[in-house]
């Protein structure tokens, strides 16, 4: 405990810890339950409910109050002490509340949605584990643990995307998601390491506070001088790039966005919670945490990335036929807005949009879940071979699913950003501030806000297209199969309750009493950076009008095309259509540029290993073998040969002498005499 922690602080801290730990506890309990146990759903839901309440209490205690920061030594490595602690400020308590509040309806919804699954309790294990990771992520106070939760979030997302692991597409998707996230993780890890080396601490507050270490350091003469030490300036750029990479991976920004549409292979409730509302927003949250790292050019780059992603994803969403894919690209697009907001300095608007987006996107996904569920029923009841997510087969659900329809409309309007909805408040804020930002800059910086503007109209179009195709007109499947048995309903209260709750959260009163001006939203003002001044330009009036008028026009256009069937249709063979329909070919390009070369490199290196390194060893062995052979030959025929010669000489002498050793006395005598005689003769002759 570093500072004077009063009694209330202690309570808040305990509440926070409990809020974070309860889902983990639920996950552990569920892990021990039988696979099909229906109790699991209630365990998890109860846990998240309590978390939610505790989070609300913490929120109430901390919001707009001084931040609370406690930490304790986790372990010591060398002279460095690594701490673990909790940092509660406006941003973290907002996220804490947001995550638990979004998670609660999703949990309730899931109890019904996953009812018939074989691995019911596993689902809730994973879901609770995700909630734990996400809640931990938002309250943690140091970068090491932040990274840990950051990856745990990705891990639980991996588990949930691949929840139906017998589907090949699902496991491909979760692998892709994890690896792409890993790329971002590496960036984050590099950034953390660089920050650690530069400042010798992992503490987020010390690093990124108003007068934190990061703010105090300056780039000078190619050196990045901080209060503790200095590194080459390139390190700062690497750190920033690493964070951008991490954000791009987690929040599905260009160029690492391609995992998110694939991640839709997971259960829809998961998509609602993780891939629309919370986890993908973690990237934006990270940006919020480390915002002081970014200055000038870096922010512009961020804005470019966000803007481009928003635009690209919106264009792709125009032509997709998969219900969830449209929503996924819409999510990418909206996340692009948030990044754009961060880039243009609309820090609080960006986080505001994060919060509002969480509600309406979650709502839309839950709607999609219901629709898909019904389509699935139709498919199973009638033994059809169809894709239950294909919107070109749907239609006319307005009558059959009235509550769902209303929810979809409200969610859609919020997404488009029409007045009275929460989306209007946050999105227009970003747009207005983007225009303000580009004002003082070069002319072509204004491309960014203009593109953002265009994107918002595109958004209006695809949302309208989605709603019109799904809920208006006739049920198109009956055209192909006239004798369908249909039992389509909104479902029981576990479906309806979350929808209603989220619907209510999509309206302005939750965030602001003034439905028109975003500046007055309490959430916006609570997150304002110090020294932030709200501009007083004419944009505040022009932008909302332009955006909304055109949006309405676009919606009408969609209505004309899809409901009235006015003979106007896109050229489906055009370049732009194909580009959009094929999602700008990113997957193919990545596969060709990255995946194949990496695998190829792997194969090559294995070949290298087997043939060159091992080959070298074998060559050495062969050379040694040859030398050995040669020496063996020499040994056998020369050295040994010589020895054998000696030996055989001795042997033949021996054999010769042996003849005298015949055992015959006379022979011995003869030999003796012969020698004596020889001596005599010798004596005489000499």
């Amino acid at each position, binding site marked *: 405990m570093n500072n004077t922690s009063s009694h209330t602080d202690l309570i808040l801290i305990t509440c926070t810890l409990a809020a974070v730990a309860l889902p983990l506890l639920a996950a552990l309990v569920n892990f021990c339950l039988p*696979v099909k146990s229906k109790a699991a759903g209630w365990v998890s839901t109860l846990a998240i409910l309590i978390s939610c309440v505790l989070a609300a209490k913490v929120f109430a205690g901390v919001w707009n109050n001084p931040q609370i920061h406690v930490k304790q030594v*986790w*372990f*010591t*490595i*060398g*002279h*460095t002490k690594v701490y673990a602690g909790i940092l509660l400020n406006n941003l973290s308590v907002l996220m804490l509340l947001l995550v638990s509040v979004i998670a609660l309806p999703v949990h309730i919804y899931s109890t019904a949605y996953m009812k018939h699954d074989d691995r019911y309790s596993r689902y809730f294990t994973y879901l609770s584990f995700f909630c734990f990771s996400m809640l931990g992520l938002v309250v943690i106070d140091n970068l*090491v643990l932040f*990274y*840990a*939760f*950051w*990856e*745990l979030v990705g*891990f639980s997302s991996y588990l949930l995307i*691949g929840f139906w*692991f*017998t*589907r*090949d597409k*699902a*496991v*491909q998707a*979760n*692998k892709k998601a*994890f*690896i792409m996230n*890993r*790329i971002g*993780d*590496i960036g984050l*890890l*590099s950034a*953390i*390491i*660089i920050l*650690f*080396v530069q400042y010798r601490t992992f503490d987020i507050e010390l690093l990124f506070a108003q007068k934190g270490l990061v703010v105090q350091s300056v780039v000078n003469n190619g050196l990045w001088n901080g209060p503790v*030490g200095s*590194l*080459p300036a390139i*390190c700062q750029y*690497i750190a920033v790039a690493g964070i951008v990479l991490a954000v791009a991976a987690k929040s599905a920004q260009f160029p690492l966005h391609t995992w998110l549409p694939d991640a839709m292979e997971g259960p829809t409730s998961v998509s609602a919670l993780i891939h629309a509302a919370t986890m993908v927003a973690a990237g934006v949250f990270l940006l919020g945490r480390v915002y002081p790292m970014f200055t000038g050019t870096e922010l512009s780059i961020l804005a470019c990335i966000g803007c481009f992603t928003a635009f690209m994803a919106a264009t792709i969403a125009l032509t997709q036929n998969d219900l969830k894919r449209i929503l996924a690209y819409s999510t990418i697009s909206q996340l692009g807005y948030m990044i754009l907001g961060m880039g243009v300095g609309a820090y609080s608007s960006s986080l505001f949009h994060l919060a509002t987006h969480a509600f309406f996107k979650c709502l839309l996904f839950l709607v999609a879940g219901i629709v898909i569920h019904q389509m699935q029923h139709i498919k199973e009841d009638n033994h059809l071979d169809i894709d239950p997510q294909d919107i070109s087969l749907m239609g006319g659900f307005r009558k059959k699913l009235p509550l769902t329809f209303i929810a979809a409309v409200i969610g859609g309007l919020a997404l488009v950003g029409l007045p009275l909805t929460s989306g209007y408040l946050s999105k227009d804020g970003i747009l207005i501030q983007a225009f303000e930002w580009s004002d003082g800059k070069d002319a072509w910086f204004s491309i960014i806000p203009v593109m953002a503007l265009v994107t918002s109209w595109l958004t209006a179009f695809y949302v309208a297209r989605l709603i019109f195709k799904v809920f208006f007109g006739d049920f198109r499947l009956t055209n192909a199969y006239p004798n369908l048995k249909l039992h389509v309903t909104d479902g029981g209260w576990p479906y309806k309750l979350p929808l209603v709750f989220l619907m209510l959260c999509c309206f302005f009163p939750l965030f602001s009493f003034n439905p028109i001006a975003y500046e007055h939203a309490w959430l916006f003002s609570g997150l304002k950076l110090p020294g932030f001044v709200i501009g007083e330009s004419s944009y505040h009036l022009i932008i909302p009008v332009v955006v909304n008028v055109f949006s309405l026009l676009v919606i009408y256009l969609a209505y004309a095309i899809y409901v009235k069937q006015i003979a106007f249709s896109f050229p489906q063979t055009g370049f732009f259509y194909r580009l959009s329909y094929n999602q700008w070919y990113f997957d193919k390009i990545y596969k060709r540029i990255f995946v194949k070369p*990496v*695998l190829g*490199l*792997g*194969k090559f*290196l*294995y*070949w290298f*290993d087997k043939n060159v*390194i*091992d080959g*070298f*060893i074998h060559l050495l062995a062969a050379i040694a073998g040859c030398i050995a052979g040669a020496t063996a030959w020499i040994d056998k025929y020369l050295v040994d040969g010589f020895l054998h010669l000696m030996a055989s000489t001795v042997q033949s002498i021996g054999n010769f002498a042996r003849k005298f050793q015949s055992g015959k006395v006379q022979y011995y005598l003869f030999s003796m005499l012969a020698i004596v005689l020889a001596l005599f003769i010798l004596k005489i002759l000499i």
Partner: protein
Amino acid sequence: MNILTLLIFIPVLFGFIIMLLPSSMRNSFKYITLAATLIQLGIAIWIYLNFKTGANYGGINHEDQFQFVQKIPWIGLNLGSLGKMQIDYFVGIDGISITLLVMTSLVMVIATLASWEIKSNLKGFFLLFLLLDMAVIGVFCALDFFLFYMFYELMLLPLYFLIGMWGGARREYAAIKFFLYTLFGSVFMLLVMVGLYLSVTDPVTGSHTFNIVQMMNPANYSAGSVFSLASHQTILGMPARTVGFVVLFIAFAIKVPVVPLHTWLPDAHVEAPTPVSIILAGILLKIGGYGIIRICIGIFPEVATAHAFWLGLLGVISILYGAFNALAQRDLKRMIAYSSVSHMGFVLLGIASQTAEGISGAVMQMVSHGFLSTMLFFLVGVIYNRVHDRDIYHFRGLGTLMPKYTAFVMIAFFASLGLPGFSAFVAEAFTLAGVFKSHTDNGLLPYWMAICGTVGILLGAAYFLWTLQRMFFGQESLKGGSVWKIALTDINLREKLTLAPLAIIALALGIMPSLVFDKINDSVLTLIQFLHLK
């Protein structure tokens, strides 16, 4: 009775019991071995709990700071004019050894449990196994170079036979390759050892000594001797101390293994029976890392500092090269073997950085990899036992067939690829932090090495996830059809009991890294101080 001596020789004691028992009681051998390893584990834990920490227990180059020391003269020959030959039985531990010691004892228990599958020639197997056990523990405890070398060589022999007799189809090839590789290293090590012996004199007795701790003190080198710091002797035109360092480094690098001296590893792993694979990956590789820290760096610190860049480069190459190779494998065991190469690259990289974070991370990585590779190889053994096939392409959808097994595989894989919460994450992250820090702290390694290391982490995710997807997920489809389906039963109680402690330890070390860091910290700091005194 010194507790370390007891720890070292307990396996031999039980080995004698097995030796004396008739072969008809062969079913009891595994229980005897298990008892031996369990007792050993108990002692190791006792030592761990009684291990004192603090600045006065740093060890490394302070002989009086080692703990549980036993030093008795062993071989003392008066060689007349050549002086007195002094070889001590000198064992003791400091922070670097203690964690590895506990890890080794535990891995040995696991390896024993994995030996249940061994069916032939049990007596020989368990005798060799216990001999090996003694040798590896001895290596971690020995502080006399001669004793160290003896244990080091003693390890080789049982391993050779264990691979060569109980191994797979190409076991002779693998065993010979392993044997030659390691022998190649140790033969040269012997030369350096003798050179060091002739250079170093014990200040107390005045005779030459093999004492490793005294070899670290430059004052103990007699003037004009081969490895004397002051005399700048040369061997073949190169500074003698550099040659000595390189030779010792090669000997240990083969064990680690460092690319390009690694090719024995995949072959040895693939052919070895599961318990031997576990020991190989879990313990043997650590001896390489331990040797580099204790002996290479300890005795030749200034050379290590001067050539840190090359050490780091080799580490980086190992990380990336191993990872890419793992990506191209279709044999599960071979894939894991290459992943070991990659993971052990972090150890070398961390050591090369010569920062507290780097070396702590390296030791942590050794401990963590000890547990994780044990787990991985055990898991491979499970599936291999059931169907005698390990080809990744021959399996599909095991998740439905063997859910518990898949759960453990996922734990092991994710822990290995550095998921936070598991030990490997802390190890790798801090190794990289140390590497990055080294440029500012001591200027040894450039920044890009840390970045390359992170790419290794990414590739680790790629090959593990790919395997997971290919083998365990998707629709069930096996090469062996229904025969395999019957054979592939989920893991039994013994296997669960084996795997669960490993998983729990990996988790515990990830959540409470202080279990390791607290014990090693003083030694690491002493080592850093020692390195930078030069």
